[in-house]
């Protein structure tokens, strides 16, 4: 997409504020985190650093490009690796999968993102695991963190313009390698600084804070935690609906209902007499039947170009 709508002043102000915030975090982070237990300290630090590294990598080009944005960037994958870091991949993948539901319809186009799934996946799963949250509750936590993450994206998109001018200067001298370096090297050093440190510090300093907060809530206002769980059932509708904006149109509309009813029939949640299959097979089975339906539909009807863009 070619639209870019962000005024230069807003960019500068945001970049300044973010830089100050991140600077403050880097300075204050270790102090904030000091009330953790001493013996656990080193382990926590290593885990936090690994999560920070994962978050950086998910936004970096190093994994065949696609392995970043289409791989580690997704909370499902991030959650799995955070689970590995914290010694429980099953729980991590479960939490990551739940958080990812919200971003199932995530599309980054024209240099804008509605939220940052990668920080929700890496930092959100790490905080949820450190605080022993269940997957449904973790969704709400992921939402909040994902919104904060857009600050980092915004900073990067603003500051990286500087390197484009470095590239111009190299090009003026006919320096081919210099132009290449302005694209792949310098921006990555900057990105590492603004993504690794905030994420690692947030995990290191935030684990106790989130844990304490949850503890306080369960003692004093348990209905808030129930609210998180209820939200965990409602928010996936947003992720699904965001994707439906692109595909729920024209002659494909009935297949949404077919998919729902098919899943309901094989899922059997509403029919006490029916033995439900393992829950993981519901979507997979529907996808197999859906692929067959798609094949037949395209063969019978041909293309429907007029319905693609509304």
């Amino acid at each position: 997409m070619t639209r870019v709508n962000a005024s230069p002043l807003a960019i500068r102000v945001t970049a300044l504020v973010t830089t100050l915030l991140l600077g403050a975090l880097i300075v204050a982070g270790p102090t904030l985190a000091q009330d953790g237990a001493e013996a656990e300290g080193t382990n926590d630090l290593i885990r936090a650093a690994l999560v920070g590294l994962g978050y950086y990598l998910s936004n970096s080009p190093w994994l065949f490009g696609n392995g970043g944005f289409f791989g580690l960037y997704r909370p499902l994958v991030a959650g799995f690796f955070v689970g590995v870091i914290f010694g429980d991949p099953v729980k991590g993948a479960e939490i990551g999968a739940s958080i990812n539901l919200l971003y199932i319809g995530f599309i980054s186009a024209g240099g804008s993102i509605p939220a940052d799934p990668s920080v929700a996946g890496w930092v959100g799963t790490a905080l949820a695991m450190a605080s022993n949250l269940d997957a449904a509750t973790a969704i709400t936590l992921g939402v909040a963190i994902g919104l904060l993450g857009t600050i980092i994206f915004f900073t990067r998109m603003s500051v990286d313009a500087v390197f484009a001018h470095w590239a111009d200067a190299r090009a003026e001298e006919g320096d081919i390698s210099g132009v290449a370096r302005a694209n792949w090297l310098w921006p990555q050093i900057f990105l590492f600084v603004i993504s690794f440190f905030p994420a690692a510090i947030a995990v290191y300093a935030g684990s106790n804070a989130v844990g304490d907060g949850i503890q306080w809530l369960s003692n004093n206002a348990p209905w808030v935690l129930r609210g998180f769980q209820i939200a965990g059932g409602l928010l996936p509708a947003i992720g699904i609906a965001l994707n439906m904006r692109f595909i729920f149109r024209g002659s494909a509309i009935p297949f949404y209902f077919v998919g729902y009813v098919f899943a309901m029939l094989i899922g059997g949640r509403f029919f006490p007499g029916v033995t439900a299959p393992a829950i993981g097979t519901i979507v997979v089975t529907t996808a197999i039947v859906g692929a067959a339906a798609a094949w037949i539909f395209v063969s019978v009807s041909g293309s429907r170009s007029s319905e693609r863009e509304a």
Partner: protein
Amino acid sequence: METMTPETRPAKKLERGDVQRAFWLWTFFSHANYNYERLQGTAFAQAMTPIIRKLYDSPDEIKAALKRHLVFFNTEPNVGGVIHGAVIAMEEQRANGADIDDDAINSVKAGLMGPLAGVGDSISQGTITPILLSIGIGIAAAGQPLGAILYLVLEVGIMLALAYFMWMQGYDRGREGVTTMLRSGLLDRVLTGAGVLGNMVMGALTFQFVTIYLTLSWNIDVGGGQTKLFDVNQDLLGAIMPGILPLAFTLFTWWLLARRRVSPLWLLVAYVIFAMLAAYPFFGPAGDFNYCQSLLNPFFQPGAGCPPPPAS
């Protein structure tokens, strides 16, 4: 044009390896310096470096080629690679004396990047990714971390294959071929099929993950001093269609987002607030909290009264 004779200027031929090197540079670094001013501009230039090295010798030509490809550029990186392929083919012809000026190359880039961003985002981010994610999430949420690995391998594999295919198509067919391919309707058929599959998977996902349980129930007098528990979730909604509430709620959300143009951010905030209200124990004291004192319930309890909360 007059310098095209082999004697004065030997034909400059790109090897397959040069085109592939450019492909890998783009695939790795297309978003390495993503920024508001040029978006993927510098990445395009970096991808062209092996081509420029091979085709141009004089400093002036190199300088001009670098500057030519440092301008604003933005498209979907995998499907959009067809543009790069076509541009490489044009650069090769130009270096061999064909009458292709900067404007011709710029107009191909600027003219194709918008449409291919639209088509490409629909394919990669709009259909392939959500479908594979749904499958991975469905498996991982059931306690099988394999779902995450399965998604990662399939997604990256498919994206790389798609990207390589499009890139080479662009180079082999050139700019006319790309236009022909875009008009052929092949992409439309792929998108139509993906839309059918995507809708079915979204339906299954709605069933599996959107959960709303009303906890409205009360005793009704059935005569003769007998009372019967009437559960709205089961006895009213369930009688119409089991699972109608999550389905209706998701369609309502789609309507708000797609038809009313409500911002997803506002909706997120509104839903979290709604969930809090729905969890607040309006129907009973907050002190000894049990599961029938609020409007909604995170767990399925078909007409079973109000059991105490499960131990977490």
